[in-house]
């Protein structure tokens, strides 16, 4: 399944350019087919939210305040309704079919989604709720030409100018956005919004080597090293600032624990799942 999602188009890469001042028209057009989720300025922070007329879309921000993982793993989702009576139980699955466009994810976001794919789709059986969202979502990534001073994706082997796993890769300039189709899904999106774009086949994106900050992280051999530090005294100090609020797991792009609960009563109700956290506490340490 991963291979199919990530397979590149075998045709020549389709490139299209759109002027920045036409982007609101593009948002309006794309949102007609289904939810368009993109980075929106929300007070002092930027969050991935469904587009609405007049939304303050911010494509220039490098990092959103919260990871976009909830596009594929919502904070809570009802997936089953039940009703019982006359000694019969009626189950009705909640089906979501409409296509989704996730616009403006960065290469680090995509790396995190790749990690989630391993958890939810490389299982037997795979998680059908997650897989369904992945398959009907077109991902439009934006290359990072100017990483944040605190970005460190180089240390984890991530190229901030490439986006394996995306359907389209965008390159933003002061005046325009160049979109390259990486998959057939990406190509289809460019073609169905054709009138808003100009031909970009003559555009060339010079490959740049972007250096992110060096915080001295040394990942080589880290798993083996940590195995020997299970009883290291550092844990006795490190935990003291933790409030056990669980927020770190909610903003983390690769945390994925969830809980499944029923809400209702014997005659009628729903089954839903919601994010869970390994950091919640029951008793004070």
């Amino acid at each position, binding site marked *: 399944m991963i291979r199919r999602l990530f397979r590149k188009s075998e045709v020549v890469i389709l490139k299209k350019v759109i002027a920045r001042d036409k982007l609101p028209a593009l948002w309006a057009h794309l949102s007609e087919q289904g939810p368009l989720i993109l980075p929106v300025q929300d007070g002092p922070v930027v969050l991935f939210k469904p587009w609405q007329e007049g939304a303050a879309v911010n494509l220039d921000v490098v990092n959103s305040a919260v990871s976009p993982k909830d596009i594929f793993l919502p904070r809570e989702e009802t997936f089953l309704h039940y009703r019982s009576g006359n000694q019969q139980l009626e189950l009705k699955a909640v089906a979501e079919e409409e296509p989704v466009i996730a616009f403006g994810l960065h290469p680090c976001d995509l790396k995190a989604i790749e990690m989630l794919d391993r958890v939810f789709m490389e299982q037997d059986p795979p998680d059908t709720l997650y897989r369904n969202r992945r398959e009907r979502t077109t991902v439009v990534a934006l290359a990072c030409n100017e990483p944040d001073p605190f970005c460190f994706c180089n240390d984890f082997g991530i190229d901030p100018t490439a986006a394996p796993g995306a359907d389209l890769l965008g390159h933003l300039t002061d005046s325009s956005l160049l979109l390259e189709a990486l998959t057939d899904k990406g190509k289809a999106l460019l073609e169905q919004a054709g009138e808003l774009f100009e031909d970009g086949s003559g555009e060339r994106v010079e490959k740049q080597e972007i250096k992110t900050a060096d915080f001295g992280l040394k990942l080589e051999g880290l798993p083996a090293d940590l195995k020997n530090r*299970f009883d290291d005294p550092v844990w006795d100090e490190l*935990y003291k600032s933790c409030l056990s609020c669980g927020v*770190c797991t909610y903003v983390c792009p690769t945390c994925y624990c969830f809980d499944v609960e029923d809400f209702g009563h014997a005659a009628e109700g729903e089954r839903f799942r919601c994010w869970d956290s390994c950091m919640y506490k029951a008793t004070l340490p």
Partner: protein
Amino acid sequence: MMAGGHNPRLTGKERVRQRFLHKLQYYPGKSRSAIRLCRLRPLPAQLPRQPGHRSGYQGTVGGEKVEQQS
């Protein structure tokens, strides 16, 4: 405590350590097929456990204290 009422790690130290090790040791070290969701699919018993791993759990379910030894 997990939302379902079980509490596999009682102290903050255990929880913080688990979080670091899951990201940087357990996850990278496992084969892809061994990745399991913590509640719904417990790790198979034959997988080697870390020294100091807590067997069983203590916590509350429905307001009642529960202690289980594995």
